[in-house]
């Protein structure tokens, strides 16, 4: 079970049981649907973007523990950030869960804009079939920001 505990850390289980920013926060001016055809999971992301900054972000839908926790942690991480910062974090997060990059132990990661809090999700890199679970919400948010309106993103 030791490997599994790496994947299903307490923080992840907590976020999946009690997702933050769950439900449609209003007002919002961006949204997108995400769909993982492998498991049938669907989620919807809502964001309020003003002056290039994500003032609020929320999500709803159903999914596995990994996708729900990742969505929940993402909303906490990105609320208040600029779109550009969000994109940089998205790119780094993506590289981390696909195993292309590691999260360092330095202070930068623990500080503002660092990925320390997302470290618990890095365990999915050992489960290639589950990486899509961890990235679904992120791809969906990216689509919401880019489309500036309704859109559907599919991970497979």
């Amino acid at each position, binding site marked *: *079970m030791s*490997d599994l505990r790496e994947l*299903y850390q307490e923080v992840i289980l907590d976020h999946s049981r009690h997702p933050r920013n769950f439900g449609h926060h209003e007002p919002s001016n961006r949204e997108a649907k995400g769909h993982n055809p492998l498991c*049938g999971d*669907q989620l919807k992301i809502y964001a309020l973007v003003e002056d290039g900054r994500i003032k609020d972000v929320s999500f709803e839908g159903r999914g596995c*523990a990994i996708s729900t926790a990742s969505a929940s942690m993402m909303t906490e991480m990105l609320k208040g950030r600029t779109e550009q910062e969000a994109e940089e974090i998205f790119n780094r997060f993506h590289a981390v869960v696909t195993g292309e990059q590691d999260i360092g132990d330095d202070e930068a990661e623990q500080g503002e804009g660092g990925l320390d809090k997302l470290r618990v999700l890095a365990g999915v890199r050992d489960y290639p079939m589950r990486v899509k679970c961890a990235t679904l919400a992120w791809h969906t948010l990216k689509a919401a920001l880019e489309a500036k309106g309704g859109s559907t993103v599919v991970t497979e």
Partner: protein
Amino acid sequence: MSATKQMGGAFDIARVRADFPILAEKVRGKRLAFLDSAASAQKPGAVIEALSNVYSREYANVNRGVHYLSERTTVAYDAVRGKVRKLINAGRDEEIIFTSGTTEGINLVAQSWGRANLKAGDEVLLTEMEHHSNIVPWQMLRDELGIALKVVPFGEDGALDMNAFRAALTDRTRLVAVTQVSNALGTINPVREICRLAHDAGARVLVDGAQGIPHMHTDVQAMGADFYAFSGHKLYGPTGTGVLWARADLLEAMPPWKGGGDMILSVSFARTDYAPPPHKFEAGTPNIAGVIGLGAAVDWFTGLDSKGLDAHEAEMLAYGTEGLMQVPGLKLIGTAKAKCAVLSFVLDYAHPHDIGTILDSEGVAVRTGHHCAQPVMEHFDIAATVRPSIGAYTCREDIDQLIAALGKVREMFG
């Protein structure tokens, strides 16, 4: 040592298991409990050896050369039609068309028979429990020809609503496309009665046998179907193989759907005369080694003590059902009286994908997801299920390992 009756009588699970080299493999350091045969069955040594033997000893293209190897390969390839004919009790070898699998078989019927025989306003009846491969080809035809698709629902237990079926049959119904056994629910459909009712209404019947053939005694003539499609890989044979059976008179009248070599009598730039069935429907170099491997799978399968196999699989289904029903918070999806081989379920405290990952860490291989049957998932308002499934080699230990692993799921998520 082979577990065939020629070699030693009644169904012996230990000997059946010994035929499958992969069952001795460890996964993630654990004993493998392979409970995913409904997705694809493992292969007995006889099939693996047949594939290796073709390529090592008697391989050449079929129906072409006059040389020794071509002749040997052609004889071996064609002999498989006879094996399959016997397996499903077809009338003639020529009624056996080799395909890449059930999906291609259904598409062949849609594109050949369907386009030649259906017109706007005609109705095709499907059931709510069809696999996507028995839905999408008909939707493509609907969009092309303007035919109507009608869907017969199933009840809460997963049994087809036969009253609704009778009511849906009209004088506009041209085809009923129905699965023999549901891949997501395990429901066994009364295909014989469906064929009788459909024929009384003047409709043809296509039976999707992908999930049925490994578990049901299939006699296409007694069943009364017009088309029967199945895959080799679920019948312990190689991937990329399959069979479409259709009555000879239907095949004679059907136009070819793919053009190419091997399906012709003569070709000039002015015209082409097509070969008679089955070659009319087998354009191009076929999956030669795969088909020969399929023949080995049919030999292996028909060599089993079939009554013993039935009794064994029924016992495993009952044992698995009993075990799963003891698991707190578990709901079986699909509880029809007539059911085989599939134990779909959901847990109220964990998502199927998380369950699948934890079972995997305990060596238990199951399918999780929508099983290419999203309308079934919609019926139960779920996104996915966990689907352990049973094959000839499934044993009590596999089920015990599953139930124990579900305890780990509960530890983590319950």
